[in-house]
């Protein structure tokens, strides 16, 4: 498909997701209390949206990933939270 066809197919969906993200950030900003590493990771990942190398999705996923290589001593939880806390 060419760029025009892809825009026809996906633009409105992407626009809606972008506004949803903006509204989420506004909602968090309006709320009281401290944010945590997840908000910082999300804001940091937004930088990759401006890349022009065709690897935005891959780079955002990597930016949100645990970069270490050694297994952890023990699993203390079963859940993942979507961003690496950095420790």
């Amino acid at each position, binding site marked *: *498909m060419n760029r025009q*066809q892809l825009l026809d*197919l*996906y633009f409105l969906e992407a626009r809606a997701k972008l506004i949803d993200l903006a509204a989420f950030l506004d909602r968090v900003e309006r709320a009281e209390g401290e944010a945590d590493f997840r908000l910082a990771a999300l804001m940091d990942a937004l930088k990759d949206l401006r890349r022009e190398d065709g*690897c935005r*999705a*891959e780079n955002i*996923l*990597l930016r*949100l*990933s*645990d*970069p*270490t*290589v050694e*297994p*952890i*001593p*023990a*699993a*203390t*939880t*079963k*859940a*993942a*939270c*979507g*961003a*690496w806390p950095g420790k």
Partner: protein
Amino acid sequence: MRYIEPHAHMVSRVTDDYRDMLAAGCVAVCEPAFWAGFDRSSPAGFFDYFAQLTDYEPRRAAKFGLPHYCWLCINPKESEDVTLAREVVALIPQFLGRENVLGIGEIGLNKNSRNELRVLEMHVDLAARHEQLILVHTPHLEDKHKGTRLILDVLRSDQRIRPERCIIDHVEEHTVKIVLDAGFWAGMTLYPESKCTAARAVDMIEHYGSERLWMNSACDWGVSVPLAVPYAALEMRRRGHNPDAVEQMVYRNPLIFLRQCPKFLPSYEADAKHAVA
């Protein structure tokens, strides 16, 4: 359209889902062993689960004319207890001869811990000793990239393991290439909130080609869509892929991989076999 659902946790779905999948063109469903949402308290709990996967669930699917296959293991979420895992792994061989068992899965890692790795190695050894296919679960979200690399290291370090007989599931844009480059099959899981959307799955097909790739719903008791594979087929059509390319992804590719287990038979072939008999 006909399709194979290569990864669905039907024990946690309602019977209506079987009817809908069949109506959408499903010709076989494959169910890896997984976490029940709570930790089982003993090996006996797993024995009953394996009996459910190899006896009751195929009979429930058969009421709709749908062949049901399964994979057996103790899943990574319950692998921190190595003693329990060793006892459960010891139960598995007695089930491997059952007619709907395809292999060992979904094994892998969850939080990338040392004990999870030990239990993964136990399963890989079990699969190698019994010449079984392997289906691997990769961790969620921030743990996926690291976990996928650790899993590939384990598989590649065992000389008995042939990559073409292993599928590494739940790949995304940051893991699909390392899996395919290592010669393994890769599964893309179509989830509404995590893993990948149909549009992103089609992106990866267009980027990496369709060889050694499949798509699955991995529908379970969480937010998931049992018809995600046929919906992704529709997305491929919207993107201009022809019907043959769609069939390659949703039918022929899983068939190529799963046929490495001689027990695998999609519904129309099973019907033909019974008619001849």
